[in-house]
């Protein structure tokens, strides 16, 4: 009995018990369903063992959407709790857990997964490649992320969630002030998922450097690929810092070291520095792919070439360098004095320059264009004004002295949501809608899509603009309640309505997927948007080998030029195609990671040893395995291509 006590949730409420039952029942239903429809074989051979970048991308997409809903429910509960002064919907302890898991889930498991989903699906297609450089590692990345996410979400029903914020500042997050195991989940789940991200980073850098189609010089790459390249460089440089910080935090919590403790020479400020040395680049890891997507979408739907290609590329590079030089702006108030703050204030505001240039370039891309208000374009057009407001408030926060008044208030919360929502969520929804036909072979309904957009755009404004005011009125962030005399009530109520609008928008998106899957036409051709880049030169749906023949590129918009300038993309004959084999190893290995992680959270050492041994054995097997892949014969390729021939090429 003693043994089982540790798995109990510390603040159980009916909601949590209900969720336990719901999760249990859903799990049983899913397992029974798969068995009943005899889908185990299909699931195993087509998904769990796949190394195909497109399928991995789709699995990332599904996971990201699931996490969006998990994080979204957290958000609704928070906004409901604070919608009225003195509300008693949630206790302080519950509220603290919820805003912590909201931040973690949204950043690590929603936003990161969403950008990885689109990079996975699109980048190899955009550069004319057959897959990423290391397909099996790619599968490992996904499963590490997935297991990390599952482990973290498990904290809701087993043992209790972390409650020190997504920034998890020590000493609050240490054993001295948070003896409960919740923060172990944070440290270990993020470590597992972060490992996956780091591997993705390396994988995509190699892919983009080494696997571009002949003729695609660096300065001929589409902007989404450029942004993916720089993002993955940022990942590779920034994530090791998080890895080290999490490892030190884990040791403090599990093995009694004193890196960040209050006594014995621990240095809590070190955690804050590590966290933000990773954390600021992280916000650009999230937003750069979005910049890439907007560049593609705005150019496609203005029917015009992207304005200022070179300055777009240079801006991304400059942003990514500056991203490592500004972390102190997250704690101007830590007492490091005017000189240090002045330096970091200037570097911080300097980021606004390349960002501003990008905004102007998007505007000038539409100039003299022929603007079509499709759903992806609407998200891009909504992005420009909202992100501008989020960005200029960032500059305001970058003024160190003024930040002494904004820091830790709702003003800051308004800033980062007004950059992250248009900068990441809008972009991902734009990208998802834009590339959906390539992924699934049908288009999402435009009418429902537009309804969803308006709900989300207006909801975002309504949810976050009031926070500027309540912040300036002195409302600190992360307060589970406030008194009526404080006068924040009205702003928080408005904000709650905005959150409802956002929720409505997301429900409409789900409905749109269902509706379009059921009713949309499957006869859409290969290039339904009349686009400009290589991913649209493949068949719909994309065959596993992507391109029957490797395309030859000699411009920035190869597909556009082949359509309207009479250039030929595909010059060679169809030959045998070399493809990688599927493998169950990544999936099985990450199950061991999951078990080891669970063991670590509860300090159950035998479990950890066994699972670690399992990981080691699999690594050993892999090192001595010979797997040369397989060939798809030219005959077979030709047959597939002929069957798909609906339009002319």
């Amino acid at each position, binding site marked *: 009995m003693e043994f089982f006590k540790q798995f109990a949730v510390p603040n159980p409420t009916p909601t949590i018990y209900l969720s336990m039952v719901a999760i249990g029942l859903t799990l049983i239903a899913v397992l029974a369903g798969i068995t009943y429809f005899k889908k185990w074989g299909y699931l195993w051979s087509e998904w769990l063992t796949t190394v195909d970048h497109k399928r991995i991308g789709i699995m990332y997409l599904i996971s990201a959407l699931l996490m969006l809903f998990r994080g979204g429910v957290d958000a609704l509960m928070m906004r409901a709790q604070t919608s009225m002064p003195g509300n008693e919907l949630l206790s302080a302890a519950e509220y603290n857990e919820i805003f912590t898991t909201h931040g973690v889930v949204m950043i690590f498991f929603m936003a990161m997964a969403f950008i990885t989903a689109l990079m996975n699906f699109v980048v190899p297609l955009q550069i004319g490649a057959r897959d990423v450089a290391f397909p099996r590692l790619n599968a490992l990345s996904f499963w590490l992320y997935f297991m990390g996410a599952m482990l973290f979400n498990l904290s809701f029903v087993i043992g209790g969630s972390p409650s020190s914020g997504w920034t998890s500042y020590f000493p609050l997050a240490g054993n001295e002030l948070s003896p409960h195991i919740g923060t172990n989940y944070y440290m270990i789940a993020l470590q597992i998922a972060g490992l996956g991200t780091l591997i993705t980073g390396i994988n995509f850098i190699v892919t983009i450097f080494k696997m571009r189609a002949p003729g695609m010089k660096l300065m001929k790459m589409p902007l989404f690929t450029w942004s993916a390249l720089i993002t993955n460089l940022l990942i590779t440089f920034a994530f090791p810092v998080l890895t080290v910080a999490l490892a030190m935090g884990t040791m403090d919590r599990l093995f009694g070291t004193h890196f960040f403790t209050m006594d014995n020479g621990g240095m809590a400020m070190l955690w804050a520095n590590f966290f933000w040395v990773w954390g600021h680049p992280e916000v650009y890891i999230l937003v750069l792919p979005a910049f890439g997507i907007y560049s593609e979408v705005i150019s496609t739907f203005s029917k015009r070439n992207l304005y200022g290609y070179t300055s777009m590329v240079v801006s991304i590079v400059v942003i990514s360098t500056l991203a490592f030089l500004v972390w102190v702006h997250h704690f101007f108030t830590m007492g490091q004095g005017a000189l240090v703050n002045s330096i970091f204030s200037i570097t911080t505001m300097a980021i606004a320059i390349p960002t*501003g240039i990008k905004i102007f370039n998007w505007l000038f891309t539409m*100039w003299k264009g022929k603007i079509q208000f499709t759903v992806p374009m609407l998200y891009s057009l909504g992005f420009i004004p909202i992100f501008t407001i989020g960005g200029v408030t960032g500059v305001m926060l970058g003024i160190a002295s003024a930040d002494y008044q904004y820091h830790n208030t709702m003003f800051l919360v308004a800033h980062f949501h007004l950059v992250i929502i248009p900068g990441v969520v809008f972009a991902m929804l734009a990208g998802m809608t834009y590339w959906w036909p390539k992924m699934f072979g049908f288009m999402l309904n435009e009418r429902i899509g537009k309804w969803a957009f308006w709900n989300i755009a207006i909801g975002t404004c309504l949810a976050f603009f009031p926070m500027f005011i309540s912040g300036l009125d002195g409302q600190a962030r992360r307060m589970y309640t406030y008194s009526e005399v404080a006068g924040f009530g009205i702003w928080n109520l408005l904000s709650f309505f905005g959150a409802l609008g956002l929720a409505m928008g997301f429900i409409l998106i789900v409905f749109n997927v269902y509706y379009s899957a059921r009713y949309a036409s499957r006869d859409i051709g290969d290039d339904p948007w009349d686009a400009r880049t290589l991913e649209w030169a493949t068949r719909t749906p994309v065959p596993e080998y992507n391109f029957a023949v490797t395309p030859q590129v000699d411009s920035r918009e190869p597909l556009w030029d082949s359509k309207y300038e009479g250039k030929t993309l595909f010059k060679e004959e169809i030959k045998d195609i070399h493809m990688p084999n599927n493998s169950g190893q990544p999936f099985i290995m990450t199950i061991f990671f999951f078990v080891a992680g669970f063991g670590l959270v509860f300090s159950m050492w035998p479990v950890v040893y066994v699972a670690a041994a399992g990981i080691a054995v699999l690594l050993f097997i892999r090192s001595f395995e010979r797997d040369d892949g397989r060939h798809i014969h030219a005959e077979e390729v030709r047959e597939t291509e002929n069957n798909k021939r609906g339009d002319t090429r």
Partner: protein
Amino acid sequence: MKKQWLFSGLLLSFLLFLSGCEPLTVFDPMGPQAALLKDVIWISIWTMLFVVVVVFIILIYILVKYRSTKTPSDYRPPIVKGNIWVEITTIGIPVLIIVFLSFVSVQSTYEAESVPKQFKDEEPMVIYAASSNWKWHFSYPEEDIETVNYLFLPTDRPVEFRLYSFDAISSFWIPQLAGQKYAMTGMITTLNLTATEEGEMQGRNANFSGEGFAEQTFNVSAVSQKEFDEWVKEVKNTAEPLDEKTFNKLLKPGHLGQKTFSSTHLDFSPPPEEHGEMSEEEMKKEMEQEQSDH
């Protein structure tokens, strides 16, 4: 464009609220530091408003002029090459704006961190503010009194707060007097502020510190020097002294309400070593001390 009107409308109402009838706390300063920050914030709002307006105007103009329903169906957008003058303006104007704001930032940051000019020659009054989950302990070493969760400040007298924490990182913030600063374990951070107007204010811990965080607030009364002296005298006459046992009880996590003592905890629980700049004299004293210790 419906949307553009919506955005401008929201922006306008936002501004109206900002400059509205009852001032927001940050815009209602009671001392020179907070007044300085208020000015800086308004400078940045106006500058940034200019940027926002320019972007909105260009966006609306382009969307109205080049929407596909307005252009002839056989219109083929041209391939547009960059124009050097356009590039120079789009880089130059943001650079100018950022250079301007950098000056504002550096200048005001130095000013906000130091004693206000008009009180430069006055010896600041020292108050130790220590946070423990989830309350504030204020020690007045010169007067030898201590309060919990409320402050009395004499007006027109610079005050130097020495901040530290017994547990979680906290942030000491009285928005109507000055910006916030962290209080941490094992070290002291200093915050300068001066009240120039009499009145009641709210202060709080702004940095999340666990379960009781929301209620970790304190009251601030800015009163004339005379009233302040009277208050000190009264405390000396009526309040109990603070001993170690009582203080340790106070440190236990929880909420306490307001308390007053006629001695401070600094004697038996000295503050962490100061990390700030030391005067030469202090340095010498310290070194002598060290030598005599050996």
